[in-house]
């Protein structure tokens, strides 16, 4: 069988299950008595085991198998959830994640899991665990010595006795596989899955391991403890292709027990009617009907829509210049369709920020433990959607900011109590829509950032001189921490302060077309606000003409456009300015900024009316002088390619309706 084609699916699904497991176990850590969670955890682990087994990843399968054993005991109440177990489960998840990543990148499992498996086996054993272990040992002995069944059954006796008391039936089932059955182990897996769903398999011959390795003939024999009747089980198994029940032996029937007890078992069993409402609340996310699509295909689709937008603009222009009234109606219709198409394609590319946020609860928990701080992470708006490309990039900056908040922001519990705060620190991670932007806020209620400390550091590191610092107000001082080479960590910890500063965060976010702001109050905490564009591919822009060249300015940075006269322009320190509603606005002539050759300048054109585009650069404003405002339109952003990358003032290119290329200005680096 060609495994390659299943690898992608395996990787995706394995990651999904690991994420689910992480989430559930985190929940479980908060509330040890959540039976519904245990069921979910067990199911996810079980599926993982099956997947790993089917793909032949032995370490994963073995490890999940061991996890499953523990989980099963927890689920059945044979063992109490405690912190030790949760820690071990988390370690298992880490190992599994490492294995999955190795499988994806290297194709083989490298991480050693033996010691972890030993840890699981050595977990404080209670009666059931001891029994189970004995059983496992015995099955192994059987494998080697081929002791006859009746002898082996003695060891099962105690288990069966206990089960009978609980009202469970004990069945011995001999299952026969068709002579020409392919993938016997897969069939066996299906049988096991069916039986697991209605009860518990306490014995199998040959052993589970041998069955997975397909070391068996046409028959397997299992002993099942279940509440279900014979009539229920037979069709369940016989429905599996190429599998038939050869013998069905009732070893012991469950003793009729009093009602109370019966109900208790019910609880441990599958769905529990009483708690239904509760379970609804914690149901795993509904998997609707979906198709997994390669992101490259979506990019391709997006490009094509871009082309269509360009052609549409071109059509509009032709109709306009040729005064073709009858074309208008058609063009309007095409306009509507392309608009819709564009928004649909954009929506398809949108993914909830959940994908990034999901890994944070675990990260914050681990970090808090490490730093011996007590922190609650509150996540809001994780259903907020962002373009896939943005999602892929935003993870690292967010990790950085969260680590910062934990490491530098939140104080130790004693310190918090002294300051009259709750000993639990709170970090809020919020995502929300705001117009054409998505805002992500990271709020902590920690000690806040001291501007004086920043001032001192800035001086120490020679970021700014004392005179320069004097001129800055508090918010400008806070901004200094985004400067390269700036880190206020008093001591270098393992968490942050490893030389990668906030400047990298800022750079990353700006390269995504976004911006980041910081507010902070000493003693009350800090808030980082990240503003991101919904999409990167198509933006609204104003086309302007300078001399005879056309440039596009993203609408997002434009505040307004005003028309002035030459005589309105004043000079301050040899720099042109205007006063706009009382505010002095520095002016820049686009033709000077962009070295537009004057030889094409038509001097007979007397530009008595001058257009000024007022743009925002950070929190400063400036006016760009252009000769003509061509109009506002949707533009498709194209890369200039490797050869022309990183030119100051130019963010990219777009293609105009007439097929010519216009450059998109990058206000941030233009002046």
């Amino acid at each position, binding site marked *: 069988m060609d495994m390659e084609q299943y690898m992608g699916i395996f990787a995706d699904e394995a990651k999904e299950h690991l994420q689910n497991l992480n989430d559930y176990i985190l929940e479980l850590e908060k509330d040890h008595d959540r039976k519904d969670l245990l069921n979910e955890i067990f199911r996810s682990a079980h599926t993982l085991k099956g997947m790993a087994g089917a793909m032949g990843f032995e370490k994963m399968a073995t490890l999940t198998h061991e996890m499953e054993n523990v989980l099963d005991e927890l689920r059945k109440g044979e063992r109490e959830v405690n912190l030790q177990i949760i820690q071990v489960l988390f370690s298992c998840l880490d190992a599994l994640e490492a294995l999955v990543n190795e499988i994806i990148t290297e194709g083989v499992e490298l991480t050693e899991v033996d010691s972890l498996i030993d840890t699981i086996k050595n977990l404080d054993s209670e009666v059931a665990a001891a029994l189970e272990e004995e059983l496992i040992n015995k099955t192994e002995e059987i494998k080697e010595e081929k002791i006859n069944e009746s002898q082996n059954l003695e060891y099962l006796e105690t288990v069966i006795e206990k089960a009978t008391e609980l009202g469970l039936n004990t069945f011995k089932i001999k299952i026969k596989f068709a002579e020409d059955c392919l993938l016997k182990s897969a069939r066996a897996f299906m049988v096991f899955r069916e039986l697991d769903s209605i009860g518990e398999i306490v014995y199998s011959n040959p052993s589970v391991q041998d069955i997975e390795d397909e070391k068996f003939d046409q028959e397997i024999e299992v002993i099942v403890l279940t509440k279900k009747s014979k009539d229920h089980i037979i069709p369940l198994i016989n429905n599996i292709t190429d599998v038939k029940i050869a013998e069905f032996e009732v070893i012991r029937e469950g003793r009729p027990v009093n009602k109370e007890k019966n109900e208790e078992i019910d609880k441990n069993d599958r769905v529990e009617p009483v708690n239904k409402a509760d379970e609804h609340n914690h149901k795993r996310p509904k998997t609707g009907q979906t198709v997994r699509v390669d992101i490259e295909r979506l990019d391709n689709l997006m490009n094509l829509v871009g082309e269509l937008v360009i052609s549409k603009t071109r059509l509009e222009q032709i109709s306009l210049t040729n005064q073709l009234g009858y074309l208008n109606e058609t063009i309007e219709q095409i306009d509507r369709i392309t608009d819709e198409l564009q928004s649909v394609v954009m929506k398809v590319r949108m993914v909830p920020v959940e994908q990034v946020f999901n890994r944070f609860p675990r990260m914050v928990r681990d970090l808090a433990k490490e730093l011996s701080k007590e922190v609650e992470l509150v996540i809001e708006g994780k259903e907020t959607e962002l373009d896939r490309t943005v999602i892929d990039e935003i993870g690292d900056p967010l990790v950085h900011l969260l680590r910062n908040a934990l490491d530098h922001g939140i104080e130790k519990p004693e310190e918090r109590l002294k300051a009259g705060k709750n000993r639990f620190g709170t970090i809020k991670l919020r995502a929300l829509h705001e117009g054409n932007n998505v805002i992500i806020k990271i709020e902590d209620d920690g000690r806040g950032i001291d501007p004086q400390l920043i001032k001192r550091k800035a001086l120490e590191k020679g970021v700014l001189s004392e005179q320069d610092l004097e001129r800055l107000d508090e918010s400008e001082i806070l901004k200094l921490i985004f400067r390269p080479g700036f880190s206020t960590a008093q001591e270098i910890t393992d968490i942050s302060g490893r030389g990668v500063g906030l400047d990298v965060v800022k750079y990353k976010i700006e390269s995504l077309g976004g911006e980041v702001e910081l507010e902070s109050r000493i003693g009350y905490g800090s808030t980082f606000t990240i503003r991101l564009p919904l999409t990167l591919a198509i933006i609204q822009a104003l086309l302007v003409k300078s001399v005879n060249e056309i440039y596009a300015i993203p609408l997002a940075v434009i505040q307004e456009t005003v028309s002035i006269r030459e005589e309105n322009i004043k000079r301050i320190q040899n720099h042109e300015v205007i006063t706009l509603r009382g505010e002095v606005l520095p002016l820049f002539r686009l033709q000077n900024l962009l070295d537009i050759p004057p030889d094409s300048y038509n001097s007979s054109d007397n530009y008595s009316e001058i257009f000024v585009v007022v743009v925002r650069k950070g929190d400063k404003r400036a006016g760009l002088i252009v000769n003509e405002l061509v109009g506002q339109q949707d533009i498709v952003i194209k890369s*200039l390619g490797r050869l022309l990358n990183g030119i100051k003032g130019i963010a990219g290119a777009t293609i105009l309706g007439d097929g010519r290329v216009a450059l998109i200005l990058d206000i941030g680096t233009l002046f």
Partner: protein
Amino acid sequence: MENYTQEIQLVVFKLDGEEYGIDILQVKEIIRLLDITRVPKAPWFIEGVISLRGTVIPVIDLRKRFQLTASNRDEDCRIIVVMVDDITFGIIVDSVNEVLRLNKNDIEPSPTVAGSTNGAYIKGIGKLNDRLITLLELDKLIEH
């Protein structure tokens, strides 16, 4: 079959009266002159960018690169779109003449002509009958 490895096919074009050749395997297509958009602050030898069916690619004016006198671009003027190391770019030439086969044995290493600044761009000189064809080292064209 032996012939096959011995020969290379060249796209031959004219620039300032001289003949040049580019290995046909590096040529993606040959197009007529399009509107070229100047890119401010670009390296001096880059004339600007064009849109090639929706993809923006840089264009190099070979006359400028070789520091020859600029001439009026006429009807014969072409852009040869080439790809080198995954970078696609266009070069503006006076005219494209033909595609011809050249035996590898007929290629001589580039002579160092005194006073020539363009030696770095030359891979070798191809001799065909009494014609001399300068073979271009394309990756050098886009180096600063």
